[in-house]
């Protein structure tokens, strides 16, 4: 058979979203790949310029639909820096707990989708079952299961409901043995190992050169984790280890993510203990009304004079479940951010795909691309 291009996408079971991977193959061998993204571009950064600071949070949930809380956290940090507002201590801990719960949910979702690409249907349903418990938790304190709109500039919307710590601990107690079960289903299977070992290798130096971050970078031996390197929120006050692997292959990414789930559980347990003993306000006092009010108070000319607003620039970076995400919020004075810019980790991870796909087989594309954990919402924004 001669060489040919095949389009894997935009509607293809491998893509897990709306993007197109063009692959040049010779028989089963991959000669060249060309990712095409942008099918899901919604102009979130541009829309943000027309919204009040708190209204942008709605868009953040939609940026990455499996890690909404992490993106809310990212944006809120940048916006607070730009506006010069600080959140109460308890709100910071709740945010950190939310982000870790989101990491758990996101990684479980990744696990489910990844093993399903390998033809394993049962772990997919186990994953969905267990992720649902975390979504139940989110529902208990935010009211939403995927799109929470929970964080606010200057805090969080509401405090945790009564009985939440107990419910959360029950979920964690349920999840811990499940993670062992997940591991046994995958690492205990020779077929799984033979499908994943040594595939999609990306060395640490290449990761750094290409801007590949997150579990992909750590699986190559790096210990870079913003939660440790540049602690934000209250990550400096909790104990956890950075998960790493050496090989930089699909198995390595799998191991890193599984370990991260265990570490997330560890962090959440510490956070819940802290929250038990430190009641307090969850949103700052004396916040300007124009931050989140659907209708901002307007002056005589129809808008407030620009000089009445604080000015500033906010830059924040967090360790999102998929990698390092950055947000840059420019506040030129006014009710809306002047400019909002995000760095999506998956965009960089995905753009580098020719470096870890070429030379493998067509049948290797699902496990390799699955191990990248693509979330098209944040790629295209």
């Amino acid at each position, binding site marked *: 058979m001669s060489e040919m291009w*095949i389009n894997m996408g935009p509607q293809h079971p491998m893509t897990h979203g709306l993007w197109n991977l063009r692959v040049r193959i010779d028989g089963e061998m991959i000669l060249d790949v060309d990712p095409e993204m942008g099918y899901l571009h919604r102009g979130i950064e541009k829309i943000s310029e027309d919204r009040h600071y708190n209204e942008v949070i709605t868009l953040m949930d939609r940026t990455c639909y499996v890690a909404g809380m992490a993106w809310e956290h990212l944006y809120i940090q940048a916006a607070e820096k730009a506006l010069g507002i600080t959140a109460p201590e308890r709100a910071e801990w709740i945010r950190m707990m939310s982000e870790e719960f989101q990491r758990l949910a996101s990684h479980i979702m990744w696990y489910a989708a990844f093993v399903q690409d390998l033809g394993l249907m049962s772990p997919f349903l186990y994953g969905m079952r267990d992720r649902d418990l975390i979504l139940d938790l989110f529902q208990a304190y935010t009211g939403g299961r995927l799109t929470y709109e929970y964080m606010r500039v200057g805090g969080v919307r509401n405090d945790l409901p009564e009985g939440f710590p107990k419910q959360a601990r029950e979920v964690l107690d349920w999840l811990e043995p499940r993670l062992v079960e997940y591991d046994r289903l995958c690492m205990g*299977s020779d077929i799984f190992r033979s499908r994943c070992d040594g595939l999609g290798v990306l060395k640490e130096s290449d990761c750094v050169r290409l801007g590949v971050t997150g579990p992909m970078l750590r699986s190559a031996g790096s210990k870079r984790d913003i939660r440790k390197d540049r602690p934000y929120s209250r990550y400096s006050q909790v104990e956890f280890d950075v998960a790493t692997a050496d090989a930089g292959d699909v198995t390595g990414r799998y191991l890193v993510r599984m370990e991260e789930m265990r570490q997330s559980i560890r962090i959440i347990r510490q956070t819940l203990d802290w929250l038990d003993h430190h009641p307090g306000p969850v949103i700052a006092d004396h916040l300007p009304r124009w931050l989140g009010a659907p209708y901002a108070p307007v002056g005589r000319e129809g808008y407030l004079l620009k000089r009445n607003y604080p000015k500033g620039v906010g830059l924040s970076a967090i360790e999102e479940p998929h990698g390092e995400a950055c947000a840059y919020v420019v506040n030129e004075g006014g009710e809306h951010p002047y400019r909002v810019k995000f760095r999506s980790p998956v965009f960089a991870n995905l753009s580098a795909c020719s470096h870890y796909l070429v030379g493998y087989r067509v049948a290797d594309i699902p496990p390799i691309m699955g191990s990248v954990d693509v979330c098209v919402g944040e790629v295209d924004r």
Partner: protein
Amino acid sequence: MAITTLWDVAYFMATALLGLVGRIIPPLAAPLGNVDLIWGLAALVFGAILLAASMINTIMLIWFERKMLGRFMDRRGAMHVGYAGLLQNFADGLKLFRKNTFKPRDADGLGFYAGPTAYLVTSLLMFGVLPVSTGWSDGSLPLSMLLALVIFSFAPLFIFISAWSSNNKYSLIGGMRSAAQMIAYEVPILLAVVAVVVVSGSFDLNTIVNEQRNFWFWTLPLTLAMIVFVTGMLAEMERIPFDLPEAEAELVEGWNTEYGGMLFAYFMLADYVRALAGSILIVLLFLGGWTLPSYVPAALTSFPLAGIFWLMLKTYLVFGVFVWIRAALPRVRTDQLLRIGWMRLIPLSLASVVIAAAFVLVKCVPVLGCVPSMGG
């Protein structure tokens, strides 16, 4: 006349039908009494009953898989149509039947339509050959096992024809994978069957099954052959972990990507027909078919239709193992699959032939009994 076999039922129905017509239209009574005519009609009735039974069993097999897979996955499976979802597959089939079947513009019409049809028809032929119980399928052929395997190996041809004529790259890759896989796994399957033939001394499935009744440690010399045969069958049925030709993660649906509606239903049905036939074949060759070992109380085998009952029970258990495998294993890669086939299974199947031959040479093992010698 005591009605004990399917052939008796068919003959009785044919006679009754023709007799009825003869009574209503007296001038036709004499020509309708013709023995050849009755036999011909009886053969048709026989085939119709066989077809209906195998189709219903196939659909029940799908239900069985869905329910069992559901339990493995911590869910319930189909629940709503009929009791415990028993009629769900009939509903699904009717839905597909109502759908418009369309052909891609550049697809080759003949191959596109004939491929799935031939695939289903040849798969169904299996039930004409497989004996299901004593007297169920009339006229035991001396080479029925060989014929069954020949029919079983038609499939890659039709899959490749339909894949090629779909004019789709995914279909073509899937079709080529399918052809490579099935041809590679034919060899160990046939060699494993040789071991069975060596021990039983016959190519006739009826004889093979009857030998197993008297020789209850049958599986001992054939354990290796059985492992090879089951693995090969798994690949022939294109089930996980060997379902690469339709690996949906990379090839969408593999060779049936372009098929929809009833043609897709043909493929699905034929897959399960082959799964049923393959499971029956495993039961016939290695697990005693419709018989139970001779030391089992006679009451267990003497009730009406006992043979079919035991055969189907064993078949569903074997298929249950396949479902279990599907729930527990990921899919292998093409090169790994071919390596397993050529480098592991073929040596193993050769070894199984040697082991079987050694047992036949020893003939009698103390305590266990005697091997049915070659050719009786």
